[in-house]
């Protein structure tokens, strides 16, 4: 790679419209430039890298000295560094080192690292950076990722944005570091839609809400005067599909989270629920309740045509497409208890894939296609697990009193789910666990929170 070539990416390509929130008003322009470094004449080679295919990963020691604040008024420099460090730490793959141990002080993006000093404290990677408030009011953030052992720069990038975007920019930088060191796409510049829960257990108020994946910037999408459940992100647009009790029958709706515009999905005679988008974002698949039975239907969002996909005297629900759109995994009690089945995307030929002890529910296909995550109930315990699409290789990632409703990070590396606690004062909170089953993390939320769903990666 020739680092002397500056690459400018247009702002709209980087920023998705979801960021047209008030805090981002008029600030969508963001430029990224690969930094040309005077220290690096050789092509960067990935001498350090993390193998994240192993069961348990030894986190990589990484030094993240506070970005230097240039040009005055750049109080966000240290905050940005903290957000980057927190992202990397929460992934479980990195161990940000204690700044008190740093020997070389006052690092900026243009400081030549004394690599020996960083090796001494056990750092394998080093990130140096600077944040500058320019005369035009914009923020310029630059960083370099260093391989401490090879004494080489691995990555250098420069961004321009408005000051309100500092937090998002920190996530973008954390994604760049993650991707360079792991070889996989990051997931930090993403959001999670969920259901905010307040009030007593027998009279909960539920609101749709959205937050950054680290729990920051919570914004409410509904007011709480109607019961809302199971929001799911569109893979292609700033829309979510969810279930609401606002009409005469509880039904599946679409909500544009940018404009607030809402519409019902289809005109079904009865309750529709458990919606999910197809991978191309053009259809919603869901359950329709007919008498005592629930069957799975698809609605094409452009033609409005609805197609029945299952036809059984049973509860068929929680459909989820494979990422290639050719198959659908769902749960059904057609065999007597809740189990997982896979069928073609047009219905028919459903094959049971779950055979372990207990009941299986809420299957969701990994965006990588290799695994299906689920809720499993057995002997009063609620677990989150994964299995291959043919049902083999079942692994339980977490278990306890009540874990429910997994959803995948866009890179297929982490599952977000909710964990409920018992009794009158109990309530759900959103947690993540990675594919290894280690590294459980709770995401802070203002109140109880359930039904999380991860946004796609933003290109």
């Amino acid at each position: 790679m020739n680092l002397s070539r500056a690459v400018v990416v247009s702002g709209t390509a980087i920023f998705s419209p979801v960021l047209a929130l008030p805090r981002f008003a008029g600030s969508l322009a963001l430029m990224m430039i690969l930094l040309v470094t005077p220290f690096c004449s050789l092509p960067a080679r990935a001498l350090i890298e993390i193998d994240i295919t192993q069961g348990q990963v030894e986190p990589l020691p990484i030094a993240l000295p506070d970005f230097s604040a240039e040009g005055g008024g750049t109080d966000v420099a240290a905050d940005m560094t903290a957000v980057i460090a927190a992202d990397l730490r929460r992934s479980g793959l990195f161990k940000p080192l204690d700044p008190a141990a740093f020997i070389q002080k006052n690092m900026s993006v243009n400081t030549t690292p004394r690599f020996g000093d960083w090796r001494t404290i056990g750092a394998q990677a080093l990130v140096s950076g600077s944040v500058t408030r320019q005369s035009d009011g914009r923020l310029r953030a630059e960083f370099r990722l260093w391989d401490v052992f090879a004494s080489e720069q691995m990555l250098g990038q420069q961004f321009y944005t408005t000051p309100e975007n500092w937090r998002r920019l920190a996530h973008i930088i954390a994604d760049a570091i993650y991707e360079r060191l792991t070889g996989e796409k990051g997931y930090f510049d993403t959001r999670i839609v969920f259901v905010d829960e307040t009030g007593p257990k027998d009279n909960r108020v539920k609101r749709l809400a959205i937050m950054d994946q680290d729990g920051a910037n919570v914004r409410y999408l509904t007011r709480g005067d109607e019961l809302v459940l199971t929001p799911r992100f569109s893979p292609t647009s700033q829309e979510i599909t969810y279930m609401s009790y606002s009409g005469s029958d509880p039904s599946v709706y679409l909500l544009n989270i940018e404009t607030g515009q809402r519409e019902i999905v289809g005109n079904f005679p009865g309750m529709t629920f458990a919606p999910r988008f197809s991978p191309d974002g053009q259809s919603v698949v869901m359950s329709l309740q007919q008498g005592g039975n629930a069957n799975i239907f698809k609605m094409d969002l452009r033609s409005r045509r609805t197609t029945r996909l299952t036809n059984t005297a049973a509860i068929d629900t929680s459909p989820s497409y494979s990422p290639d759109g050719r198959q659908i995994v769902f749960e059904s009690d057609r065999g007597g208890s809740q189990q997982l089945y896979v069928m073609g995307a047009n219905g028919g030929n459903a094959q049971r894939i779950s055979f372990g002890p207990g009941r299986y529910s809420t299957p969701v296909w990994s965006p990588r296609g290799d695994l299906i995550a689920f809720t499993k109930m057995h002997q009063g315990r609620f677990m989150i697990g994964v299995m291959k699409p043919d049902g083999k290789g079942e692994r339980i990632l977490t278990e306890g009193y009540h874990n429910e409703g997994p959803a995948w990070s866009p890179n297929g590396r982490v599952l977000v789910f909710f964990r409920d606690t018992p009794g009158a004062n109990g309530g759900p909170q959103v947690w993540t666990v990675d594919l290894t089953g280690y590294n459980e993390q709770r995401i802070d939320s203002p109140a109880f929170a359930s039904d999380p769903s991860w946004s796609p990666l933003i290109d």
Partner: protein
Amino acid sequence: MVVMDNIARSARLVAAIAVLMFVAACAQTKPDLAGGNVPPGTGQDFVVNVGDRVFFNEDQSTLTTQARATLDKQAQWLNRYGQYTITLEGHADERGTRQYNLALGARRANAARDYLVAQGVAPTRVKTISFGKERPVAVCNNDSCWSQNRRAVTVINNATN
């Protein structure tokens, strides 16, 4: 007189509780006693003297003997007071997943509906809705509460009370 007041209030309370317990035990035999202040044919009459809910076993929607007895009484009452429409609300306990419980609640509401219709209640008077596990009435952490939440509740829509 404060003491007297308290005693009087307590006595009334005890009487009310006794009546309620008695009603719960054998509602149809004592409409006069129980309904002393409950006008017949009202929504309150239905709740107090008939019983507005039936309960289900875990992960089941089959009507128990007790549930059928309650629904028999509901049907009699509804057939007598034909001016009312009803909504059957189906519910599940919290020990299941959200989507499945929505369908399970619907199944329970539907079982109760079918039974009432078979007892002569016009289908056009009956609507069903499921709340899944979203509306528990009891919140403790054992089956004494969960069993109260696994229910189908008959709500009189246009009751004057």
